[in-house]
């Protein structure tokens, strides 16, 4: 099968998956117990029973879930409209877009640093196997991987704000709010240090462990022995021959992670009061804000599926065996 057909098939299949996910989500949120109107207004003593009934009608909740609500929602989606959030009273698409950038910034920086240092550490640990360096890196990685996100975040927050004078939350200081981010880079960077560091430490361990086992496997291959026999330096062997092959599992895991880190950022964003998608998902869930929930989960599903597709595509370039099949 040609690469184009392969990719086209993957793409169509992805679209179908997204549609199925959306339909399942539609059902899932509506079987949750509780009353969205009550969730949105909370225990607000100012809203009488009559007013709640009128809100229920406004949200379209007085009609049966199937077929009325279902087809009304489908029709909305078909028009490219995700609806208006009940609790935030803004178009869902606008809300998602405004938070997506912030989350991507955090995830992007954290992942790049985690990949860079994780791969580097794994490479050296595998190369210097059974040395103090290996044992140290291995212990650190196992601990980092096993650390609860929330706990690590709080510890770093307390330490960083007490000893380094770093900010305790947010993306920029209040006086810089509303200015374009590129005009307040130093302030932005100060606010990013702790959340990025948290994310880096959390993912670094995983990458290091995978890289280490992968490089160990590659180093035992015959062609590495050949390269050494040809008189290449250790560094050359590692860099030119071992690294590329050892990177394959990392690509898979990074692609998978990229999809899931969007949801994984929830904890980090909550600790650092970071205005991103994670916090938004939490609000949507606790408020039973169906339009926002559907939009948020659509975004999650799309990011996981896109990341997977990306991994598939990358594989066709990195690994000739995939193309042959």
């Amino acid at each position, binding site marked *: 099968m040609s690469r184009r057909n392969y990719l086209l098939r993957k793409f169509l299949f992805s679209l179908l998956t997204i549609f199925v996910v959306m339909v399942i989500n539609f059902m899932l949120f509506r079987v949750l117990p509780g*009353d969205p109107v009550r969730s949105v207004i909370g225990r607000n*003593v100012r809203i009488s*029973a009559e007013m*709640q009934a*009128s809100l229920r009608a406004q949200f379209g909740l007085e009609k049966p879930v199937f077929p009325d609500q279902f087809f009304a929602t489908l029709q909305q989606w078909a028009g490219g409209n995700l609806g208006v959030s009940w609790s935030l009273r803004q178009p869902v698409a606008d809300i998602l877009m405004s938070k997506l950038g912030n989350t991507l910034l955090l995830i992007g920086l954290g992942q790049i640093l985690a990949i860079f240092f994780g791969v580097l550490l794994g490479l050296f640990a595998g190369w210097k196997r059974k040395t103090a360096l290996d044992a140290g890196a291995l212990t650190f990685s196992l601990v980092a991987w096993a650390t609860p996100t929330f706990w690590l975040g709080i510890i770093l927050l307390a330490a960083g704000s007490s000893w380094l004078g770093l900010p305790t939350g947010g993306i920029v200081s209040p006086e810089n709010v509303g200015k374009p981010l590129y005009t307040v880079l130093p302030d932005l960077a100060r606010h990013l240090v702790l959340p*990025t560091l948290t994310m880096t430490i959390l993912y670094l361990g995983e990458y290091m462990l995978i890289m280490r086992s992968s490089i160990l496997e590659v180093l035992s291959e015959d062609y590495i022995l050949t390269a050494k026999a040809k008189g290449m330096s250790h560094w050359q062997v590692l860099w030119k021959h071992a690294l590329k092959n050892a990177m394959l599992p990392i690509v898979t895991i990074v692609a998978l992670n990229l999809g899931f880190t969007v949801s994984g950022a929830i904890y980090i964003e909550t600790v650092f009061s970071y205005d991103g998608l994670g916090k938004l998902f939490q609000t949507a869930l606790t408020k039973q804000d169906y339009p926002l929930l559907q939009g948020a989960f659509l975004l999650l599903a799309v990011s996981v599926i896109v990341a997977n597709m990306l991994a598939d595509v990358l594989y066709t370039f990195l690994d000739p065996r995939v193309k042959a099949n």
Partner: protein
Amino acid sequence: MKKIGLILLAFVLLLSACGEPDASPQQSQPAALRVGWLGFPDTLNPAYAFLSESYTMFDLVYSTLMTEQLDGSYAGLLAESWSESEDGLVWTFTLRPNIKWHNGEPLTAEQVVWNINAFIQNSDGWVTNYGYIIGFVEARVLDERTLQIELEYPISNMEFRVSFLYIVYPKDFEGFTTPEDLQNFTNFNPIGTGPFKINTLDKDQRVIILDANPDYFDGRAKLGQLVYRTFDNSDALIQALRVGDIDFAAEVPTSAFEAVKTFEGVTAVALPGRSLSELILNSVPEDHDPVPTRNPAITDPAVRLAIATAINKQDLVDVVLQGQGIPGVSIIPPTLGGGFWFNRNLQDVRFDLAEANRILDEAGYVRGVDGVREKDGIRLDFRLQFPSDSSNYPRAADMIANWLKEIGIKATPSAVDPDSLVVAVNPNADYDLVIWGWGSDPDPDFMLSVMTSEQYVEGGWSDSGYSNPVYDELFAQQQRTLDDAARQKIVWEMQEMVFNDRPYIVLWYDDVLQAYRSDRFAGFIQYPTGIDAFQSLMNVEPVK
């Protein structure tokens, strides 16, 4: 290689940022009080606001005709003077002279009248005002500074009601034709007549900066600015106060309060508030549809009395609230109206396990082999549920279950998602014992309404299902009794009925816990809503 260069660059940038000198906002703007809180207003449109943070902003940005004072009485705010007709059907308000909107225009009686009539005529749109304008017929202008509100029947708590009607700038609100349009208007750039005006509001970064209104009719606030920042978790909020990232923490969790007291340069404040927590005993009438699902023994007055006798409320306060509150007795917190509405004569049942055992013995409940009492085949085995979003209730539930075990009652605590619990309690009536709480209005009317029969409908506020025609009649009566002393008598009587019938066993009244940097600011005043009531913030000034 280029990529690695970029990564390194980013990393260096991050590292260099650590050494960046702290650009303190206080240097550029003198006397800015930086507030940290855990929420953010859902809207600044008083037509349709649900979150308490919105009301905090309304108090700062808008004004009302009248406002509550420290002693629980009401004073004029926009109104200079007011009077009611002999029959209580017409109220006349005269506005203070020279009140200006934030844009410099003068406030007129006509604009206030437009507001009141909009609330009345478009009550589907002005949802959050609905409860305050029931019984209003219309408002009319008498002259430039005088207006009248005509009522359908005398309203006993009229002053309280108008203290919640925020007067908005009509031009911003005139154009909406449907309730949805009005409600989707978030009004994040509001024009009001209040002591502060919005300078910056960023709903994404969740930062609000307010400037003192130099033309405020009651004099300019001593602070130059208020800066509100939202934190997503209370640990970070407390840490921010400790390191001086903020000057005022609007919410301090009970568990952190003792620690905050020890922070250098910080003063922690615990003040009596208006909230209460209670044990709800399923009191839904047998003929209710759907039929209540419960252990029928919970309706037995002897069992109720025994449960009340077996709960050590002082212990709950000491352990669960770590002393930051007082034991509860009535559904009306002691702070309402400066204590005027709270029935001081109520004698709470004394905690006495032996006495509780005796009550159950006498009522014929006999201990089985497992220690659980039983009568006519009905075991005293109850569900004890509480909303899962509370940090206080799990502990309270455990303590209560242990005491009940001592008297042969089995209570099984379980945390339930609050949304499911709402439905289980009302309208499904499927529960035995539930721990929950309320934040009361300053007027007793709302808390009293929670016990009326008509509130036990889907969307109503009754959770116990208590139904007592005499109580319902008294409720209607107190709403129309204009004489405060006469109304007080009725309100006290109602509290006594609830206390004796025990649809609720009120557990405690918790304190409002807040803290501020006393090395930087002084002048806070303790209001039942907190030291950040707008009258208090008007008075706050930097320490020299």
